[in-house]
């Protein structure tokens, strides 16, 4: 789960990382009045779960409250990478002497988290990684130790080799960033840019935090940071029902159990010349309500011309899925054909149930997919 910059900054502040707090505005008028209160130039920053805000015009320096109003006007409602901006952060502009990058994320190959810093901050770190990898210093974080003081020192002196006073501040900051990462079950904590001001202060000018969805259960206070307005209705419904769902661009609506089988279903659809409208994994349980929600989500998409069920029952019981489907068909006008393949646990009971329903059954994965494609094309 991503959280907004202003929320991330609150976590940082609680952990002793210096930030410029700013205030959140949902309208241009609010933005102007915040700028008025600040009484100095401000920066208006789009609060949206997408990278590249600056490049997209979502971050603007404003000398006056009027400029803040004008820029907020432009930014609120703007689309950045498909996400609508609904709030801006209005924050005092800093006198930047230098910009660095610091971040922690998981290193899958090492099975450890990794701390990365680069003296070239403020720009796309992936660009730095590509063009000047030596500029990035990495420290693998040992699970048994956490971020050690010596590691924080090495990273800090890499950033500020000729400025021990700033490097000492950076050591604390980096240790605190490590605490944020591990105490909150983050998958990413990043400061870009980490600045030194003309006055010699170290400040996290931006703050990016992604949370491990699996860790949220033990951080109810973080679950509250979820921005429901930032979510698509389909995504929200899926999340609440415990479905893994992604909208795609094709015509075959897919309901599958298991992530691997669902991915493979997409592949096989493509192999036979079709195109999937979505990825949807109903998971291991076979609660009929899940089937209903899955159908509802898929039918919101006007592109869908056929609904394909590909179920291999293990924990999932085929008869449960069949019952759920029949229930939906009896109570709803689906409007598109439904093709289904059910194999595995309680397969025969399921076939019996489906006999009553207006659905097309197939016995193999290849077969049901080919049938779905031909229906979508007809």
């Amino acid at each position: 789960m991503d959280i907004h910059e202003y929320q991330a900054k609150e976590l940082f502040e609680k952990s002793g990382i210096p930030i410029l707090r700013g205030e959140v505005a949902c309208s241009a008028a609010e933005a102007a009045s915040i700028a008025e209160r600040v009484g100095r130039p401000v920066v208006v920053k789009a609060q949206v779960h997408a990278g590249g805000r600056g490049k997209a015009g979502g971050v603007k320096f404003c000398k006056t409250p009027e400029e803040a109003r004008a820029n907020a006007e432009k930014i609120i409602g703007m689309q950045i990478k498909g996400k609508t901006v609904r709030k801006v952060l209005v924050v005092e502009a800093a006198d930047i002497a230098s910009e660095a990058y610091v971040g922690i994320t998981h290193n899958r190959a090492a099975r450890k988290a990794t701390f990365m810093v680069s003296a070239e901050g403020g720009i796309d770190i992936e660009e730095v990684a590509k063009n000047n990898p030596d500029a990035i210093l990495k420290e693998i974080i040992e699970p048994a130790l956490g971020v050690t003081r010596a590691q924080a020192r090495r990273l800090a002196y890499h950033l500020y080799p000729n400025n021990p006073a700033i490097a000492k501040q950076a050591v604390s900051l980096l240790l605190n960033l490590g605490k944020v990462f591990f105490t909150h079950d983050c998958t990413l904590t990043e400061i870009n840019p980490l600045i030194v001001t003309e006055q010699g202060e170290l400040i996290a000018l931006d703050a990016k935090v992604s949370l491990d969805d699996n860790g949220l259960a033990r951080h109810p206070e973080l679950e509250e940071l979820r921005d429901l307005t930032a979510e698509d209705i389909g995504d929200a419904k899926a999340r609440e029902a415990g479905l893994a769902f992604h909208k795609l661009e094709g015509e075959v609506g897919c309901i599958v159990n298991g992530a691997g089988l669902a991915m493979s279903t997409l592949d096989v659809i493509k192999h036979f010349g079709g195109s999937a409208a979505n990825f949807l994994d109903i998971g291991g349980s076979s609660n009929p309500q899940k089937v209903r929600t899955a159908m509802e989500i898929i039918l919101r998409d006007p592109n869908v011309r056929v609904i394909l069920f590909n179920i291999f029952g293990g924990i999932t019981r085929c008869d449960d899925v069949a019952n759920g489907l029949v229930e939906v068909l009896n109570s709803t006008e689906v409007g598109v054909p439904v093709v289904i393949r059910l194999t595995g646990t309680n397969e025969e009971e399921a076939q019996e149930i489906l006999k009553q329903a207006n659905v097309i059954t197939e016995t193999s994965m290849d077969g049901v997919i080919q049938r779905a494609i031909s229906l979508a094309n007809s």
Partner: protein
Amino acid sequence: MAIFVDKNTKVLVQGITGRDGGFHTQQMQEYGTQVVAGVTPGKGGQEVHGVPVFNSVAEAREATGANTSVIYVPAVFAADAILEAALAGMDLVVCISEGVPINDMLQVYDFLKDRPTRLIGPNCPGIITPGQAKVGIIPGNICTPGNVGLVSRSGTLTYEVVYALTLAGLGQSTCVGIGGDPVAGTSFLDCLQAFEADPDTKAVVMIGEIGGDEEERAAAYISEKMSKPAAAYIAGRAAPPGKRMGHAGAIISGGSGTAAAKIEALEAAGVAVAELPSSIPHLVQQMNVL
């Protein structure tokens, strides 16, 4: 022989009094697995499907000689359960629980790396040696004994392929679901090494998916060290970049971990890569080793 589990495996179920734990205890028993103990703190002294319940793994192990543990506890308690099993000296721990926080797994992985306990999972369907024992949730009726070793990151996709093998008359030595999480206790590589050493395994099937570099590492091993023929299927060829496809592991970003890269590495290692899950049996038959 087979790998990791066989008819001598003595299973302990952590979370036996839960819904899933109880159900699968029965399934495992019906398959003929020796389920000797269960653990649920505070329910020591009870019985579930005739299996005695203990308050701790150490106590259960001492009383029953269990050597393999299977975990069906809620995800946030899974790491603790794995560590409990490891500290109690289990040889094998199979963690079915899905949704274990990644930081928990970093700690568990690091702790186990120099210890004798093997972890399979988490977020996995477990392991089955057809005709001998199953530990986890792989449906027993879709498997049949034979000489194909199968290892997979996915659950239901495994069933799809195993069932296709069975229907084609290609039995399995052992099927291992290693789970789709980014940090898993057992890798493709670990399983390939075990299959290579197992005289009951004549050919290997590997079911991978996008994300990570485990398939590439496996390809390197196959190319350098493996004498037995291998077939593979990689899910996620059609997955759009940057989307997290259910499995925490199956996220694809930038140019790394793509299906194309994995398929290329496997083919370069001499692995027969299937276009469709349904083509796997044919590829195995063509190996002419069974």
